[in-house]
């Protein structure tokens, strides 16, 4: 049985096609100002990679902050619900899932079946999400993907007011003028963000195993800072940015089975 999951995020739309609980292909596109159009692009990419047609999809589920703009999907699932499903699919012992996207971060407590029990969310503040790293990378004049490796070279973190993107930008400029080292500034950025995420997760309680998903999970600098703050092992799946889409595809498979009964 072939199902499709679609995750309409603030920055990118991601899609995953599943066949009998195995991932067959992925697709993605920038959300831009037209999420529906981006969704079409992502789906087309995934279908062509899997050599499939629209009609082969038995059931499709949308998730993500713009899920109401999703074209031609059968139903929706909350982002927290999708995260929980994906986390336990990757790591059966996962009980705490942390998802950090471009503009939002959340932590989900789940059971062994991948059912969401509780969650906390950090919304509408860029300092706790990927947008923060992007802004600071721009201020530092460093490529986004170089921020993590750069920060790992630092022994300590520079002092910055990193609780707000706007203030953080001014601080970074001041530190550059003072000729502080870029690795130490980069590490300060990740430490500050990890601080925010850590206090968010502590509100929920930390139950191992802890899984980190979302685009920010690919950043080695952030991962190092978060490990230091939380003091626990953190598991990361192979394609952490597709976790939401995968969770939606898993939900699609379950709902299709339900319908067949």
């Amino acid at each position, binding site marked *: 049985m072939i199902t499709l999951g679609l995750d309409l995020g603030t920055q990118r739309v991601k899609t995953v096609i599943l066949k009998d609980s195995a991932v067959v292909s992925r697709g993605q596109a920038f959300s831009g*100002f037209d999420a529906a159009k981006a969704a079409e692009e992502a789906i087309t990419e995934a279908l062509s990679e899997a050599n499939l047609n629209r009609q082969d999809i038995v059931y499709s589920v949308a998730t993500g902050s713009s899920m109401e703009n999703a074209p031609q999907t059968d139903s929706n699932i909350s982002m927290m619900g999708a995260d929980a499903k994906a986390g336990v699919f990757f790591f059966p012992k996962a009980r705490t899932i942390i998802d950090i996207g471009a*503009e939002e971060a959340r932590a989900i407590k789940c059971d062994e079946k991948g059912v969401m029990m509780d969650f906390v969310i950090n919304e*509408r*503040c*860029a*300092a706790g999400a990927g*947008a*923060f790293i992007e*802004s600071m990378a721009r201020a530092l004049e460093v490529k986004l993907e170089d921020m993590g490796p750069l920060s790992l070279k630092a022994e300590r973190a520079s002092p910055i*007011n990193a*609780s*707000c*993107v*706007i*203030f953080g930008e*001014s601080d970074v400029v*001041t530190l550059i*003028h*003072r000729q502080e080292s870029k690795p130490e500034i980069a590490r300060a950025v990740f430490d500050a963000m990890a601080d925010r995420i850590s206090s968010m997760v502590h509100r929920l309680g930390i139950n191992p195993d802890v899984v980190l998903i979302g685009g920010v999970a690919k950043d080695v600098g952030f991962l190092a800072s978060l490990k230091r703050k939380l003091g626990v092992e953190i598991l990361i799946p192979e394609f952490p940015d597709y976790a939401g889409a995968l969770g939606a595809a898993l939900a699609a498979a379950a709902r299709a089975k339900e319908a067949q009964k």
Partner: protein
Amino acid sequence: MKESSSVIDELEFWRWREYNRIIEGKHWTNKDIITAGVDVGSVGSKAAIMVNGEAYSWGVTRTGSNSPESASKALGLALLGTGLKVSDLKYTVGTGYGRVNVPMANKAITEIACHAKGANYIWGPSVRTVLDVGGQDIKAIRSDETGRVVSFLMNDKCAAGTGRGMEVFADLMKIPIEEIGAISLKVDEEPPPVSCTCVAFAKTEAIGLLRKGWSKEKVLAAYTRAMAVRMANLINRVGLEKELVITGGQSKNIGIVSRIEVVLGVKCLPMPNWREKGLDPMVAGAFGAALFGKALYEKAQKT
């Protein structure tokens, strides 16, 4: 034409007026108690000189990356043209975000106490609630008839609603910051406020709205409204008691002030005509600091 457009791109829309003022008809002699207050904020540095506890002169400048230099620059502006020297000052109090870095200060006092005191001086003993909108934080302060702080709340570590946040918007819209408030009022009806309060996200949202065809006025109205609601919430949490006044740089933003009045359903005490003869509410903290300076000097003389 290409050249002129690039000049416009380089204009600093966030930049506000740096100036100094001496109150006409006031004089000093060596027998007077001359005190100074220096308020080094995160964005602006203000210094005020008082003669026997009466405002005499002040200066306003932008805070640079070096706090002691900014303090000296503000004080230099306040002293400019007065004939006074730093050595003539009997007592100097530092306040604000950079108060521990005011080299000429005899003592540092928090800006919360200084703003309450300064607001009491500017508007008189009927003031009970002071909203200080600074460059980096917003404070709602309750005070008694003497200008003493009763309680306060502050929203810090977030640029939304602060002067710095407004500067970011001035740059984005390419509208001088001193005109932004009036321009935000040029709408036929109030649009829905922007949904998010984070300045970084509000910027993205504003760009989206402009692309959708919203006018700059309408986008500014939506943003200003959202910020006013944020400030009004802080005031409500500390408990609004009349009279209400607004200090700090954003007290000059008519778009913010008028919307706070609408949201709260009360009028603020009228803004002094600071461009001509009135006292500048942005300097309230420095006035308060200079008043504390006088009290501290007199106490020291008695012992």
